């Protein structure tokens, strides 16, 4: 896939705010089971609005979208909690949602990665470690562990989802890693 500018913008400006977004959603929505749906819906709304024009303040825009979504959903729900609605309509949570984890860089980021890796279930962790730390291909991982390639692929798929959940909650995205690469290249003669 060719990364378009919009994709780039989304990855660089919006994804690092996921930790704060999830805290906001969790605090303002009763049913935790809805959170993955809500997150996705917010992202879809943000991405689609940004098609016509990139917002100047991504963070304010993201939280406004989240708030509007929650208001829509609350209105649509069969039992409307007046309190929730009032809370949402009156408060502007975006201000205290500034996420410090956004600046986790360098060594700290590596630690967060290691921690995310450690939290994976055992078999999944083995596959991901061999793939990412030892740099083996999926086929090599399969040979190495004496398992099917299809199993390796399945574990990778599982690992990707778990890593994303854990890394994005802490503000680690590829945007920063890539910025680092660019700097290094610039420095070369």
């Amino acid at each position, binding site marked *: *896939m060719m990364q378009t500018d919009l994709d780039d913008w989304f990855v660089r400006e919006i994804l690092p705010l996921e930790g704060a977004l999830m805290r906001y959603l969790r605090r303002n929505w009763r049913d935790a089971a809805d959170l993955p749906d809500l997150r996705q819906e917010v992202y879809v709304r943000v991405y689609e609005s940004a098609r016509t024009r990139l917002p100047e303040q991504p963070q304010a825009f993201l939280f406004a979208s989240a708030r509007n979504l929650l208001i829509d959903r609350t209105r649509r729900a069969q039992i409307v909690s007046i309190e929730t609605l009032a809370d949402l309509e009156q408060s502007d949570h975006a201000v205290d949602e500034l996420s410090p984890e956004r600046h986790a860089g360098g060594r700290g980021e*590596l630690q967060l990665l290691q921690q995310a890796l450690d*939290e994976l279930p055992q078999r999944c962790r083995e596959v991901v470690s061999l*793939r990412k730390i030892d740099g083996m*291909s999926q086929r090599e991982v399969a040979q*190495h562990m004496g398992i099917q390639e299809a199993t390796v692929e399945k574990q990778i*798929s599982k690992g990707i989802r778990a890593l994303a959940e854990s*890394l*994005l909650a802490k503000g680690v995205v590829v945007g*920063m890693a890539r910025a680092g690469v660019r700097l290094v290249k610039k420095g070369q003669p």
Partner: protein
Amino acid sequence: MSDAQRIDAAAADWLARRDNDNWTQQEQQALDAWLQASTAHRVAYLRLDSAWRAADRLAELPAASAAARHWPWARFSLRRVAAGLALVCGAALFAALYWAPAPQQSYATAIGERRTLALADGSRLTLNTGTRVRTSIEAGKRNVWLDSGEAYFDIAHDAAHPFVVQAGASRVTVLGTRFAVRREDEVVKVAVLEGRVRVEQAGQQVVLGANDTAQADSRRLAMSRKTPAQVAQQLGWRAGRLVIDQLTLEQAAHEFNRYNRRQLVIADPALSGMVIGGSFAPENVDGFARLLQQGFGLRVESRDDKIIISR
């Protein structure tokens, strides 16, 4: 599975597929079509792709650490010069696991900290503020000692190998379930979210099911049934919330004090019995104090490491 989760799973499958060396032109076209089909597909893919690429930085970790983690296969690692060394480490680890008593691992969280651990058997522990645990997982036995504080357990199901949590004189035995144990000196509280656990204390025992809680101290063992909402509230700390449901001011202050170095002190005994409720960020003790000041007209005074509440 929700819509979002289904799309997420599909996006992860695409990425895992593309991560393989034998990715074909046709597959690329199929992926492009899938991404074009809906914005939901696209954002899910971008999100997972960015995290998976961020994980490339794991390559900076020493390979030996990966090899040691995967000792059964470490012998075959030919990738790095360190492979020979890894073999020795792997063999040593193998010997340690099989011939010596399983080593105990210790974990601790500081005041206000929260942390999740994965154990070798696939179980997960989440430690709340100011908690100390030791774990020992070896062939056939799974033991955790809760020395102080509070922990949430998500236990990998394994009927043949009971998982035992020892908290002071109380012992909690489980087969595969999710529950939390909190210990303050000799008072132990257990709350079960799912499955069944057995709590034993000085010859007495009770079996708890979902939404049951038990409290044990040196004299007695009592159980009570809660609503799912009450149990969820009690476990609110896992999501970084301190949920206070009809507690006295004294109890609420005690809860906040577990999470903060700056301690709330209720200076006026007449206030201790005041009943309050709400959902708070546990580290935001100042916000709580302001609420008492503005909402209840109490006096709040900060002195060194103390916040003194009076009338």
